[in-house]
């Protein structure tokens, strides 16, 4: 199976804080790959590295054979026309209607006449169930509708890769169900490759073909959902089953509880 995205031994730091220490993963073409892990482990950072918005300290980030971290400004923007990202906030342009938001990348990157643009936009909006909301502004949309409108904009130019950053965060069960269905169906019908960053385990495991679990600054396990269920790694099991204590401790490191209550030692 061909991989659309590959990361090899990626190290990344923010200032003095190390985020990744040797992350390696693959994203198979045409599949839904889920990136999961505890909050703050750098899942969104991973998407920004793949999109070339951040550059690793060392290692390789490859997309369709292009080494993203070595591309100059012009070639990087060319490669980005082949990928897309659904941001956690939706990131719709607040001064444009839903229609104009979806039309924006088409108008920017093609010379299509306006009637064709309108047809394409209506098709994209229909695929996410928002054709009737084309005239609304982002401030008039619910959270779920904004996410779907942003999804329509993400697929406006038929990208090869779409990256979803926490698509289910803050969604009610109905919106979540719609998004799960959309991610799966768009992936299948448009032949996309999808990367879903999330910690909504049940939703993600139901649509993912390939799952990577991040923790401790690297990928601790990857494989199919079934393979991960059998994984012996305690951390993986703690994460998948939502156990409150384990390798990721419930308690933030502190001195002995009894000593603390009795006022022994320094730092009371």
């Amino acid at each position: 199976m061909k991989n659309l995205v590959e990361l090899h031994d990626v190290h990344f730091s923010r200032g003095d804080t190390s985020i990744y220490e040797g992350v390696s993963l693959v994203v198979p073409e045409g599949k839904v790959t889920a990136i999961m892990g505890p909050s703050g482990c750098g899942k969104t950072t991973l998407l920004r590295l793949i999109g070339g918005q951040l550059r690793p300290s060392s290692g390789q980030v490859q997309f369709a054979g292009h080494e993203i971290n070595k591309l100059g400004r012009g070639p990087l923007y060319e490669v980005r026309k082949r990928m897309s990202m659904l941001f956690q906030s939706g990131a719709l342009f607040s001064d444009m209607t839903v229609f104009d938001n979806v039309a924006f990348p088409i108008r920017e990157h093609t010379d299509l006449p306006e009637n064709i643009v309108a047809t394409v936009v209506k098709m994209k909006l229909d695929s996410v169930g928002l054709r009737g909301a084309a005239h609304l502004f982002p401030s008039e949309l619910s959270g779920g509708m904004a996410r779907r409108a942003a999804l329509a904009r993400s697929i406006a130019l038929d990208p090869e890769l779409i990256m979803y950053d926490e698509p289910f965060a803050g969604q009610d069960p109905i919106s979540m169900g719609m998004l799960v269905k959309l991610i799966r169906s768009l992936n299948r019908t448009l032949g996309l490759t999808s990367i879903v960053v999330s910690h909504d385990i049940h939703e993600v495991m139901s649509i993912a073909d390939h799952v990577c679990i991040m923790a401790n600054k690297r990928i601790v396990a990857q494989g199919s959902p079934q393979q991960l269920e059998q994984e012996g790694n305690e951390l993986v099991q703690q994460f998948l089953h939502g156990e409150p204590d384990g390798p990721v401790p419930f308690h933030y490191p502190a001195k002995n509880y009894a000593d603390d209550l009795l006022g022994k030692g320094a730092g009371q």
Partner: protein
Amino acid sequence: MKLLVNLGRDTLNVLRGMGNATIMLFQALVGKPQPLKMFPLLMRQLYVVGVQSMLIILVSGLFIGMVLGLQGYTILVDFGAEQALGPMVALSLLRELGPVVTALLFAGRAGSALTAEIGLMRATEQLSSLEMMAVDPLRRVIAPRFWAGFISMPLLAFMFSAIGIYGGFVVGVQWLGVDDGAFWSVMQASVEWRYDIMNGFIKSLVFAFVVTWIALYKGYTAVPTSPGISAATTQTVVYSSLAVLGLDFVLTALMFG
């Protein structure tokens, strides 16, 4: 020793900031021209940045001109030189108050709005989404706003001076009784096109460049949180005001010193 270290670190931070601001502006302005895409964006920004700042500029200009007329008259009349009120009002406005006060008002009205708008675009990931759609936010967002500020501020400064002179006329001539013909003819004889008007214009171009640049850079690099945007907006007004006043002294010394 610690003081020295802090001083060195702060100096390096300032230099780094200036370098980054220069790179940002260079990348925004230098590149393949796209007039068809740029023109509608520029027109929109000229409206937002320029036209929407007109009211505060015109009202402030009128009052400042009226105050100049009143103060000038009370001083000049003691020496029997009230005919010099016209050139006094005109030269004060064209050389100094027009460019400087317009720049200060522009920083407070349009500069802070630019910073807050761009900072909010960063906080809501709109700038990141532009990048991911292969649209350069520097060319799409920063460049039209920069040109709009650069074009509109000198025009606003002219309007400020014009209505200020009218304010001085209303107070000096119509209210306090300075001779109408003397007011205008002495002004016409005293004000030189190149020396007074063009130098004032050059000043407002420099202020427009600096204020718009600071506003855009502060917005573009704002920490994407509520306190971060608030701090960036405040910094825009403070840094712009200080830059305008400092540069005004330098330019005045070069032009009229």
